[in-house]
């Protein structure tokens, strides 16, 4: 029994636990919005696009979050710009822009190998996070969470129906910029916990799972955020015993929950659909 409490005895574990939970929660909040518009891959794209920013920040001795945030925003802006000017489809635009940024990051890190431990960016290293970074992550997440709590209804309306948003005096453009700024900021925060490659899971899986469980957006947010917070906390905790990458554990947990919902969800799950087809057949006979 006492063995299970061991992680709580270490400062670095405590820090990892609450930082993970915070980041997991706020990423899950964003995930609920992203999947509604088919923008889920934006999370992945931003996760990779921040890498050159991190590399550059290390070289210049700046806080990594600043550099990451700048390139993240540049990538988001670049995608919006290419999309606006050309008639290329979203997936192609996202693909071209984020690989360009990621390649730049890898190149920088390989030319200047001592400056950055690229592995800690790609895979995350929450267990090794120092106090400064932890504080940065905490501030980013807390501010984002507050903004989202105040603005989620307006954002929902913009995602659902921009014309109507305009009709009630909301400026959709301003809110979209706000949203992508938050997304870039939270992607930066999530880098520390799960790394660039698994950021995508943090900003997709909780929302996708919640989507299977409810038809109301308010509830969807609650489910998604709870799932993000709990899996991140538990994931960090379990990773102590497994001695494995925290990001991997968190995402595996989220995937397990998704699969459970996929099978057992009351209306949108496989079993429910089988049942309703069977009922329909019986009625037809």
């Amino acid at each position: 029994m006492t063995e299970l409490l061991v992680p709580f005895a270490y400062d670095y574990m405590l820090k990892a636990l609450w930082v993970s939970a915070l980041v997991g929660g706020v990423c899950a909040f964003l995930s609920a919005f992203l999947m509604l518009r088919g923008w889920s891959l934006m999370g992945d794209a931003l996760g990779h696009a921040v890498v050159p920013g991190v590399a550059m920040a290390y070289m210049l001795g700046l806080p990594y979050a600043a550099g990451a945030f700048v390139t993240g925003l540049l990538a988001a802006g670049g995608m919006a710009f290419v999309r606006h000017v050309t008639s290329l489809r979203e997936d192609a635009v996202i693909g071209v822009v984020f690989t360009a940024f990621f390649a730049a990051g890898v190149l920088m890190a390989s030319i200047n190998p001592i400056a950055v431990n690229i592995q800690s960016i790609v895979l995350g290293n929450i267990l090794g996070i120092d106090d400064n970074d932890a504080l940065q992550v905490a501030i980013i997440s807390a501010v984002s969470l507050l903004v989202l709590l105040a603005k989620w209804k307006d954002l929902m309306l913009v995602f659902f129906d921009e014309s109507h948003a305009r009709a009630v005096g909301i400026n959709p453009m301003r809110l979209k910029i706000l949203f992508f700024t938050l997304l870039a900021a939270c992607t930066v925060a999530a880098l520390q916990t799960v790394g660039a490659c698994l950021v995508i899971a943090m900003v997709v899986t909780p929302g996708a799972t919640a989507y299977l469980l409810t038809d109301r957006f308010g509830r969807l947010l609650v489910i998604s955020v709870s799932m993000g917070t709990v899996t991140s906390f538990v994931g960090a905790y379990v990773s102590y015993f497994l001695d494995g990458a925290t990001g991997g554990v968190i995402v595996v947990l989220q995937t397990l929950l998704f699969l459970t919902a996929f099978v057992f969800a009351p209306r949108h799950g496989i079993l429910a659909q089988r049942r309703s087809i069977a009922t329909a057949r019986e009625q037809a006979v």
Partner: protein
Amino acid sequence: MLQRVDDRTADAVSVVPAIEVSHVTVSYPNGHQALRDVTFSLDAGGICGLVGINGSGKSTLFKTLMGFIRPTTGQVRLNGMPVARALKTNIVAYVPQAEDVDWNFPVLVEDVVMMGRYGHMGFLRIASRADRDAVDSALERVGMSAFRKRQIGELSGGQKKRVFLARALAQEGRIILLDEPFTGVDVTTENAIMELMRELRDNGHLMLVSTHNLGSVPDFCDQVVLINKTLLAAGPTQTVFTQANLEKAFGGVLRHFQLVGANLHDDDDPRGVTVLTDDERPLVFYGEQSNLRHATGTPHPPEDAA
């Protein structure tokens, strides 16, 4: 509803047109000119049909009225205000085309109607008692109260339209823009929607309705705006919605049947029948003149033209 008469007189006093479009030209960045020098104005308390072929600039005009597109030259005023300010005062409601809505979005019918109230709420958009009452009565009015807990994708085409109409009602906008409200809707719903629009008109609302449904235009529109990149004609339905103008608006696009003489009937009535349709409810003219009659044979109600 009880204040019908008062509302009308109140609106008659106000001199500012509800929608005023003056010399509006819209060019897209790629050089394509979508609208050229369009000018018309509409007063409160009316139903105006916006008629034109696909690509004639109907949706560009809507987008300009909603402030999505800024006119390259010219200006739009709503109740005497520039668009941006008018939108802040919550006077414009918009009923989107069915294909512009994501029907898988996780919202219930009542959530959508509540969105109509956002402009009346504070920063955090917390619904007050008045907001909930407005939603209840809007749902009641379109006959969708029983469906309020349904996810929007579970509704039929006609029910979906009613939900968005209820949202416009809940918003209490004085100007309502309806984008193809009759597409994919059964006749019962179509009639219910028209009836509701007439009530709203009598309460002093202005509705601008884009439609392909030529046959029902004389039924419910007292004004018509015909466009094809530029304004072709605008004014009372009786004088503007003529065969000549429609041929101008649609060119060769309309199906056009003319049945005359012994082919048509074997009696002394010398009038021919002209059928115009772009594949929705057809428009039928008897004889040469624009003696408008509905395809189903009901005469054009005189009060509509008043």
